């Protein structure tokens, strides 16, 4: 997943903020996972600028699906 996410992070720079957490190393990441009720890794949570979660994906996500989810953000 990392190459896909890295590529999309560059492509969506300025449009979507990517916050990436290694939950083994980041207590902040662990707390955010709890906050969002995520239980498994990898989990991707898509949040609009007003703070509303609009989508989430668990496990391997294709690049096309990831683009669709990112494009749905407002």
């Amino acid at each position, binding site marked *: *997943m990392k190459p896909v*996410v890295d590529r999309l992070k560059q492509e969506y720079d*300025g*449009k*979507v*903020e*990517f*916050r*990436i*957490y*290694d*939950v*083994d*190393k980041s*207590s*902040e*990441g*662990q*707390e*955010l*996972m*709890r*906050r*969002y009720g*995520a*239980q*498994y*890794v*990898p*989990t*991707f*949570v*898509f*949040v*609009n*600028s*007003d*703070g509303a979660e609009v989508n989430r994906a*668990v*496990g391997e996500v294709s690049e096309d699906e990831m683009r669709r*989810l*990112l494009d749905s*953000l*407002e």
Partner: protein
Amino acid sequence: MDLRKVLIWGGVAFVVIIGAVLLMRPAGGGVQDVSPARANELVAEGVRVIDVRTPGEYELSHIPGAENVPMDSLGSVASEWDRSEPLLIYCTTGARSAQAVTYLEAQGFETIYHLAAGIIAWDGDLERGSEIVPMPADVTPGAAPVMYEFSTDW
């Protein structure tokens, strides 16, 4: 003895050997992929449950009573275990646990249940770690939409 008799007796011997091998296996033994529902029954029966994910993943949530034995320590930890004790193995999606099952089978563990669909498919109760982590300061929404990725380096 002609070739036909050799083939017949060879076939009989093959069937007898396979039958003997199967009869020597413990009831319910070997490796069995199990559904979440069957895994739930096994947990209720008290089968030893092994979570081969990382400590961070385990901390977030795990099957009640599961022991956390990450893949990188499985070899050393499992060497102390009773090989006749049934085990239920799982990870997130079944990928890492499949490797663990292959390893444990090669090490002589007799009865291994594999939650092949992973904890993602688990619909029973879950336990969480008791550690309380302060709420981070920067979780407020920004000016732009946000994609959070929660992952681990495995």
